[in-house]
């Protein structure tokens, strides 16, 4: 019976995943082409930057470099070449570092995923917690105090919070390292390495997540106040449930639905916001890589980062769809 039931549920699940996947490929292809074309609008190219940096470039050496990097080709030819390389899973070579783009990104990806994923997770968990507390004590002084505090966080830029955290926790209290993603020159392993990573991660992660924490807490508060007014909550109370059970079983699950929807969209913003936080905390992630690549007109790296970001956003939104289907069974039927 239970197996039969699982089989019945598997149908709509597959439909959700297949639906997301069929959207994903054309979406990503469109993003790649648009990115490529938009970047052409920037004044100057990689060769200009190289020539400027070397300080002693001749017209001949510059045009030789253009031929060598393929930048002398017409735009349509460059795009076709890039797409054909992409089709072979080749992201090209960095004009700045002369290394394969895939290797450069692979070195940065884990730290970025850690930072962005950690920040999103922290924001969702803290937002749910704060939102639930505020909703169940709506109108009382705790709710008012938290609302005020969240409003403050909501309207403060993340980099400023980051700088203040460095001042307080690194400079004054000496609790956490102020920059980097690991202690340089040490060969830590096991628990010590994990602890070292966590100590480096905690401040940038918090700085990045605070804004979203405030957004989710406000969202959860509003949704939960609405949910708590519903008939089924009264019906559940009439069953004799404890207030905490009531929140845990009925209110949180219903309040999670809008949070998951919004969090899927926020991942893109978080990747963008990471640039600033990574700069403040010297965190070696993809955000700073992209920023440096932009200044150097290192288009292969920049396109690679943008491609990977779009894949991440599409994947997370597909995950959010699946999660929504699990949270709200009404979505799965038809």
């Amino acid at each position: 019976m239970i197996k039969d039931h699982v089989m019945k549920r598997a149908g709509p699940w597959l439909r959700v995943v297949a639906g997301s996947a069929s959207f994903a490929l054309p979406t990503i292809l469109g993003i790649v082409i648009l990115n490529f074309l938009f970047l052409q609008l920037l004044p100057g190219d990689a060769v200009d930057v190289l020539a400027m940096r070397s300080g002693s470039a001749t017209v001949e050496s510059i045009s030789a470099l253009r031929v060598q990097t393929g930048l002398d080709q017409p735009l349509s030819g460059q795009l076709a070449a890039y797409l054909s390389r992409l089709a072979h899973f080749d992201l090209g070579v960095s004009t700045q570092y002369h290394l394969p783009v895939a290797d450069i990104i692979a070195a940065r990806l884990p730290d970025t995923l850690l930072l962005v994923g950690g920040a999103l997770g922290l924001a969702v968990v803290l937002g749910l917690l704060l939102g639930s507390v505020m909703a169940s004590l709506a109108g009382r002084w705790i709710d008012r105090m938290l609302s005020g505090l969240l409003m403050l966080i909501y309207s403060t830029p993340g980099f400023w919070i980051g700088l203040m955290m460095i001042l307080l926790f690194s400079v004054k209290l000496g609790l956490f390292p102020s920059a980097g993603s690991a202690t340089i020159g040490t060969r830590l392993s096991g628990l010590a390495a994990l602890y070292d990573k966590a100590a480096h991660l905690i401040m940038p992660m918090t700085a990045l997540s605070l804004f979203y924490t405030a957004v989710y807490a406000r969202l959860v508060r509003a949704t939960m106040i609405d949910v708590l007014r519903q008939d089924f909550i009264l019906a559940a109370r009439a069953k004799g449930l404890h207030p905490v059970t009531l929140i845990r079983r009925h209110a949180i699950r219903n309040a999670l639905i809008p949070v998951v929807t919004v969090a899927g969209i926020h991942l893109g913003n978080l990747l963008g916001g990471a640039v600033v936080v990574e700069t403040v905390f010297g965190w070696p992630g993809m955000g700073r890589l992209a920023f440096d690549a932009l200044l150097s007109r290192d288009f292969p790296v920049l396109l690679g980062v943008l491609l990977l970001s779009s894949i991440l956003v599409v994947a997370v939104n597909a995950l959010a769809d699946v999660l929504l289907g699990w949270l709200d069974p009404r979505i799965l039927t038809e």
Partner: protein
Amino acid sequence: MTAASGELLVIRDLVVERPGVRLLDSVALSIGKGETLSLVGESGCGKSLSALAILGLLPEGVRHARGEILFEDEDLARASPRRLRQIRGKSIGLVMQDPMSSLDPVLQIGAQMEEAIRTHLPLSARQARGRALELLDLAGVPEPLRRYGQYPHQLSGGLRQRVSIATAISCTPRLLIADEPTTALDVTTQVQVLDLLDRLRRELSMALLLITHDLSIVARRADKVCVMYAGRVVERAGVDDFFAHPRHPYSKGLLHSSLGAGTPLHHRFDRLPEITGSIASAAGQSGCPFAPRCDQAEAACGKTLSWPGTTDSRDHFSACLHPNPEESA
């Protein structure tokens, strides 16, 4: 009417208010074991609020000001939140009006039933599941096994109300409160749900507090009837006595304005009489709340502040100044 006389629930002089507004005023009623009491009145007269007061589930900002709610000789108005949670769902079950909104849309039917069962009974998950399936069957839900794993939106309104009823009776309560259980259902389903409630009341020997505004339901299903108007009980009687000799002018007005009252016909050609005015006229009224709409009102009706009312030899209560108006005799 004392608790010792075997009454299951006795409410005396119940006053419920929001700051500045009295919502229930001196409500008194009693239900014997296994009895069906019907609470009637128009929207906003305090029927549902009375039910919520019994369960200690008054909305925020509304408080119990005075009076006793004796359930099996225990005053629920003074019970601790913990004690109230023990009683809710175990000794007193609640079925709400709209089965579309009274079930959590994101939880399976079975899970919602089991949480009621396992809150009160020391059963394992497996036993609770068995109990839930039994209850669905008892409540006339076809294919309990399949329904158990479904979500509320996959069920029809009538089925959902059966699920709500099955949940409310899961711990064999002594009192079931049904707050307009059929208002949101279509007519054919209404009869089935009322039959189900009646059958369960007899099989489980529980009392039923049936809140409705449909007098035809009262006539067919109730043992006793309690008419409310603007937060007060205006008439209380055995159901046969009530339909044969209504005493309060409001009750008479209600009976006159319904089809088939006094005549066996299912249709009539003349206009139905109505009670003139609206219930809003009772707001801020110092005397009898019905006085502004009453055709027998005298100067005294608008002045007197407390309404002891009169109870006749058949234990028939009426909150009217006219002790025994001639035409009801």
